[in-house]
């Protein structure tokens, strides 16, 4: 039989002013199992904690109840104290008579009665606590980074700097992400390649960073410290070890295709590197369009390669590796504006997006840095930029503001003027959101120094007349409707989650919001963590971010990951579910509801029948102790330590124990 001690705290007058603490202590003496009660001014103070330890010895107490503040404040304190008193730290319960009693009630008598009930609940529960041991698991000292954009690259460099090994898995043939497509970047206008390329090279040369490009994560199992990850390395048909990137092959390949990297404004070959500074500088063969693969013709690349690097027989390869932590850096994609009939359903060639414009600005891009009309290649002199396309549009787009399109539009208007001072730039905006360091100043410069014309209003219609685009907008500031005939329209389309975001989230057991953006553990205080311990977020996969924000979160995520890896072993909370295999019927209803995939089936030999049968098995390191399985299990085979059925039923009964009295 448990011997319970109850310690009622005054918290100065925070509790004692409203709750008669002495009365509470007195009445608690009569609760089942309670052998000692007292009240004290400040339980969490050193003398208060000493008091507990002393009384445990003096009265042979085996369980402790502290009636004081919220467990979120001091549960940990008193667990440690309980442990120091020589008891199992889980032989302790807290009765919250401050936040949920003395602070919210005025009537002293009512508050005291309620406090008594609260202590009664805790006493009823603590007697049935199981001794729990914190367990430790070893840590695999490697980090997986999914996505090789600027966020993945920065994270890899930071993790490597801390001395840990990392692997970048990038879906495309080269790392670099969106940033590699740009010419210059706001607000400082440094050339994107100049600041990105050195980082890409650093990644390539680091001994601690392994690059799996043209690869994808296929399956993730395990848990923090011990993730097991299956990675598909798609067949490049080019041997990475032999190729030295001389380019002979793609110069000679006869197949010309639109280049995705160039937003279809330029061409690539069937064997190609997406852009000249690609890392690794090894081409891939586009199997869908290669003549040899499809018709067994051609085969030129193999013939001309001086290093015999071409291997048409290469197959996809799936490898499995172990990691201690995972950083998700999969970035974003662009909203498809072709849903807007009023903007021509994507039919007008000269209605382009910000990314098209970036490629045109780029001097190594498809137009050699000239701003042209895609319809006829003629120089575009009058350019209309439209902001917020697909953003801030609850009706048909995304409800949120994409955060950086105001800035990249300003940048593009500026660069247009720099490329061609004769050109005219018109920007339709609703609000200018330029809250970063030097951002407002930048936008001002674009208007003042570069003479871009800003018009406040959303555009309602774009249509074609005599080969020119007619843009029908409005300037609400002057109260006039405005029609502009333009050579080129550039839509600042919303940044949105990638189409496969949900698949990845499910693989990693991380939540996502209604916009399919990955959700951080806490928006302010844990912005790069997820609720799945060991999985971190960086960059635009979490919300639209510009490069400064992306790099900052990359460094933050790598600090968090390295922090985990710096431990030899990690503790796990023992308040988790456990299965009684005697009772388990093997229905696996529990498996269906577990949000963490912590339940697997296991074959056992039945004790009675000696037959083999299936039962549920819980992986302690994956279980987060939510208790969903517990509720789902009909035979009652699962229980949750710290919140067992017996404890909760006991609590309920304690609340009504004296009910018979009045009859």
């Amino acid at each position, binding site marked *: 039989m448990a011997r319970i001690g109850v310690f009622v705290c005054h918290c100065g007058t925070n509790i004692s002013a409203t709750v008669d603490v002495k009365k509470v202590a007195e009445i608690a003496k009569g609760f089942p199992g309670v052998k000692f009660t007292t009240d004290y001014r400040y339980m969490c103070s050193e003398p208060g904690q000493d008091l507990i330890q002393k009384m445990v010895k003096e009265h042979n107490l085996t369980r402790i109840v502290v009636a004081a503040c919220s467990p979120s404040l001091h549960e940990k304190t008193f667990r440690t104290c309980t442990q120091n008193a020589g008891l199992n730290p889980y032989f302790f319960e807290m009765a919250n008579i401050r936040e949920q009693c003395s602070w919210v009630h005025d009537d002293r008598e009512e508050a005291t009665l309620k406090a008594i009930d609260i202590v009664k609940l805790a006493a009823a529960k603590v007697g049935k606590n199981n001794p729990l041991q914190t367990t430790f698991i070893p840590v695999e000292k490697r980090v997986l980074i999914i996505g090789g954009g600027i966020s993945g690259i920065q994270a890899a460099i930071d993790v490597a700097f801390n001395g840990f090994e990392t692997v970048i898995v990038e879906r495309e043939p080269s790392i670099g992400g969106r940033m590699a497509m740009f010419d210059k970047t706001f607000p400082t206008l440094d050339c994107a390649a100049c600041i990105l390329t050195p980082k890409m090279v650093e990644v390539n040369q680091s001994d601690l960073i392994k690059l799996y490009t043209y690869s994808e994560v296929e399956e993730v199992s395990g848990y923090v410290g011990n993730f097991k990850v299956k990675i598909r390395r798609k067949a490049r048909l080019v041997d990475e070890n032999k190729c030295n990137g001389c380019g002979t092959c793609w110069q000679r390949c006869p197949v010309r295709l639109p280049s995705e990297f160039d937003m279809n404004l330029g061409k690539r070959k069937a064997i190609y590197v997406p852009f000249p500074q690609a890392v690794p500088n090894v081409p891939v063969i586009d199997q869908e369009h290669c003549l040899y693969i499809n018709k067994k013709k051609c085969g030129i690349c193999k013939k001309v390669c001086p290093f015999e690097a071409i291997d048409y027989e290469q197959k996809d390869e799936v490898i499995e590796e172990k990691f201690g932590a995972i950083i998700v850096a999969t970035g974003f994609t662009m909203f498809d504006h072709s849903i*807007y*009939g009023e903007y*021509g*359903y994507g039919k007008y060639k000269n209605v382009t997006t910000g990314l098209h414009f970036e490629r045109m600005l780029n001097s190594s891009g498809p137009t050699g840095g000239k701003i042209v009309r895609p319809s006829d290649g003629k120089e575009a002199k009058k350019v209309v930029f439209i902001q917020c396309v697909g953003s801030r549009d609850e009706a048909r787009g995304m409800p949120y503001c994409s955060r950086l399109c105001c800035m990249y539009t300003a940048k593009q208007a500026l660069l247009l003027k720099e490329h061609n001072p004769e050109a005219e730039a018109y920007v339709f905006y609703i609000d200018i959101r330029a809250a970063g360091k030097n951002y407002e100043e930048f936008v001002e410069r674009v208007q003042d120094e570069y003479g871009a014309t800003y018009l406040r209003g959303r555009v309602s*219609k774009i*249509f074609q*007349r*005599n080969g020119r685009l007619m843009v029908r907008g409005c300037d609400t500031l002057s109260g006039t409707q405005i029609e502009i005939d333009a050579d080129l329209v550039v839509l600042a389309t919303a940044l949105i989650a990638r189409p496969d975001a949900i698949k990845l989230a499910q693989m990693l057991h991380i939540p996502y919001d209604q916009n399919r953006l990955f959700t951080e553990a806490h928006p302010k205080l844990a912005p790069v963590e997820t609720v799945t311990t060991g999985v971190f977020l960086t960059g635009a996969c979490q919300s639209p971010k510009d490069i400064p924000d992306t790099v900052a979160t990359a460094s933050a995520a790598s600090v968090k990951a390295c922090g985990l890896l710096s431990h030899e072993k990690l503790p796990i909370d023992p308040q988790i579910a456990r299965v009684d295999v005697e009772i388990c019927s093997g229905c696996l209803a529990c498996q269906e509801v577990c949000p963490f995939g912590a339940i697997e089936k296991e074959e056992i030999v039945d004790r009675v029948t000696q037959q083999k049968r299936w039962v549920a098995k819980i992986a302690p390191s994956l279980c987060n102790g939510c208790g969903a399985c517990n509720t789902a299990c009909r035979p009652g085979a699962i229980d949750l330590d710290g919140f067992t059925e017996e404890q909760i039923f006991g609590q309920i009964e304690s609340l009504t124990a004296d009910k018979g009295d009045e009859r």
Partner: protein
Amino acid sequence: MMKVAYYPGCSLHSTAREYDISFQLVCRKLGIELQEIPHWVCCGSSPAHVTSHLLSIALPCKNLILAEEMGLDTVVAPCAACFNRLKIAKQEVAEDSKLKKEVEEVLGKPSAGKIEVKHPLQVIIEDVGLKKVEEMARRKLQGLRVASYYGCLLVRPPSVINFDDPEDPQSMDNLVSALGGEALPWAFKTECCGASFSLSETDIVFELSGEILNEALEAGAECILVACPLCQSNLDLRQKGIEKRRGKKFNLPILYFTELLGLALGMSMRQLGLSRHIVNPSKLLERKLAVT
């Protein structure tokens, strides 16, 4: 044989007789029996909805009840404005129980809920099908360059109408293509023609309809195809005035899609009442289709 209730609306009995005539002829040919709703009343059009919301719902509802009392499950309304008002009334009553109660109080009858409201275009595209139309056609439109003009009320609001696209509708264009004509892509298919301002704010009609005629001409149209008597009247009746104000000749016949369909099905201009148009289409049609 398909049997539907017919709600002609005020215009088809007056300014748009030829729409009435051609629609009825085409239906007969395609095996659709039209039964005019006995004692139907005006739908209230825009004067009702800018005066009293309840009235603007009650008037169409009255007609829906009359149609349902005929024991038919579909009512067809060729005027886009009537079609729009009937559909809106049906939906609003279905979604708003308070309104429904009020309407029933006014009408002294339970409101109709089952009957489906369709526009003739919908009947041709969805019920008859372009394939059948194509098979039955006896004349090809021989590359006649047609700008299809839908107006605003036929496809808006999409949540209520639920037919074709609100910005770039295609049903008439598909019909034209199926009949061998050239359906011109252009951007003013659903721009407003001035609609109900024909008599009150005629200047607005001159301006808006003028833009539409101009855009159609620029797109290379030889004629404009319409599916609404208000559109037709604004573009046809006011065309001379627009020409004068703009100092530009359009000479664009404004045809109902039922007329063009009738011609393709082998009917004559006289049968279809084409002489009633202000901008005379006979020269164009004689030249292009060799019809009389």
